[in-house]
């Protein structure tokens, strides 16, 4: 398959993830949709790496995986802290900083 088709799949996944971040209200699902967007970026990076025959794009994708794992750990810790304080797990109601 041509490289362009992989990029089209990547664009699909990115847009689905962006739509999820913008429309869902559960912070866990929002984290999942962030994962979707990062995975779309990973797929594009690896497709370009294949296009050039250069493995440095795969290193980039691995680092993105590491950063995503860190983000998940901190984000889930925040969700657990929110739950322990008996706050609603809903990003529309957690708006004390809105002023």
């Amino acid at each position, binding site marked *: *398959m*041509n*490289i*362009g*088709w992989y*990029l*089209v*799949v990547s*664009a*699909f*996944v990115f*847009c*689905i*993830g*962006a*739509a999820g971040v*913008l*429309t*869902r209200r*559960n912070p*866990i*699902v929002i*984290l*999942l*949709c962030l*994962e*979707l967007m990062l995975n779309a970026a*990973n*797929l594009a990076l690896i497709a370009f*790496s*294949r*296009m*050039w*025959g250069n*493995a*440095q794009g*795969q*290193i980039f994708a*691995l*680092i993105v*995986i*590491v950063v*995503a*794992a*860190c983000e*998940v*750990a*901190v984000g*889930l*810790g*925040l*969700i*657990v*802290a929110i*739950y*322990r*304080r*008996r706050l609603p*797990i809903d990003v*529309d109601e957690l708006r004390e900083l809105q002023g």
Partner: protein
Amino acid sequence: MAAVLFFIAGIGVIAGAVAVVALRNPFYSVLGLVAHLLSLAALFLLLRAEFVAAAQVIVYAGAVMVLYVFVVSYVGLQDEPWRGSRVSSGGATLKAGATLFCGALLVELCIALLGSGLKAIDSRGAGYVPGFGSPTQIGDLLLTKFLFVFEVASFLLLIAAVGAVVLARRRGGLHDEEWTVSVASLLRSPTLGSMAEAVGTTMATPSRGAPGEPAPETGHGRGEPFPWTHRGGGQREPGPGTEAGGSAGEGGQHPGARERGDHREEGGW
């Protein structure tokens, strides 16, 4: 053959992503993401990225998804209501606008990708050399050219682990039942339930040695034998147990005093 595999994996990737966004139960969303990740690993294999595919399956579908499943089952499986209890009045409008925006973004990206004049995008990529994307090549790059990135990534993982533990730690003093527990632990006997009580050295030591006599082997001053003993007794109610711990804290008192200090910190939180 590769085209068939690509279409199967691509449909799996997009269907998993749609399942993550569309399902109302967060647990099913997590399962949808697992399916998405496995299909994505197949796409990575088609792109000759063997090591990244393996890392994707092990790290993402193995470790991170387990973390998600644990948090979802800890927080509770609340289905998101379709409407109601919505604080912002324009929620439906915002949702429709967001969906429209993402559809426009998708159309724009597809036009940019498929209509671009780049020759390389319409090719199958560079010729395959044996060893491309293998663990040997990845490790070679990570330990020579990208060594600094490698070290920074390890440091970032350390920071994230510490941050997650600090964030998800149990904090007392905010919830009623935990506050009750900590008050009770302040009012009861300082060594009750500690390891020193089990060993039995707490009550026996002050009476065994002479109370006013300084122990010859300790080099500490008389007034403050151990700093943690003094701090532990300072905020407690002045009782006979505290006095005995403060005045005759030498000799065999060492494990008991340390146990009390830890105990008080735990009660304060």
